[in-house]
């Protein structure tokens, strides 16, 4: 179970990233944030976001057009 969940379904670039950044602020260090989104561009963007910020993208998956991401707050 993630420490926090962000529903970014229906939002387009760059809103999923901007809202994830905000949501991460409330996650304790070492905690996890789960994000669900429908923007196909979010896959490449969350990978880039995590590489740049030093947070860890633990997993990402897709089912029926809904993308799920799990980010560990390591930065």
């Amino acid at each position: 179970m993630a420490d926090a969940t962000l529903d970014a379904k229906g939002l387009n670039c760059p809103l999923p990233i901007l809202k994830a950044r905000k949501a991460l602020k409330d996650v304790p260090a070492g905690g996890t944030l789960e994000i669900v989104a429908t923007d196909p561009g979010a896959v490449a963007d969350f990978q880039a976001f995590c590489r740049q910020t030093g947070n860890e993208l633990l997993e990402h998956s897709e089912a029926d057009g809904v993308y799920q991401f799990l980010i560990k707050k390591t930065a």
Partner: protein
Amino acid sequence: MSAEEKSMSIIVTKGSLDWAYPPFILATTAAAMGLPVTMFFTFYGLPLLFKKLNLQVTAAGNPAMKMPMAGMHMGLPNLVTAIPGVDAACSVMMKNLIKKKGVASIEELREMAVEAEVRMIACQMTLDLFEYSKDDMIDGIEIGGAATYIECATQADINLFI
């Protein structure tokens, strides 16, 4: 934050609804990725700092502007774009499309840029030239000139002109 901190500056020169997107999208995203960001608003980009925005698009001189409509994409010949009310109608269509597709409004992105402490500089010369007042602009902005921007640009890793 990443070990080596990068920073970004953007010169914002255009104030139509469509051209307002790239600078605000990039500024907010870079800020979200931990980069200090400076935006320098000059010429037609300066009105993007007004408290109240009513941004418009024009199809005139823009052959690539084609909007999805009834299963196809429709553009307008320049002659048609000159008819009064056409730009306003195009702007309403664009704003509806933006809403429908879950794209942020410029107002929303600007608010997020302010929250993310993006540094915003209004060009003093443009204020004078077009007789604008800082009082009509959002709080928290700075006033500066070319030297202010250049100083910032020499320290930034990414400098964009939009």
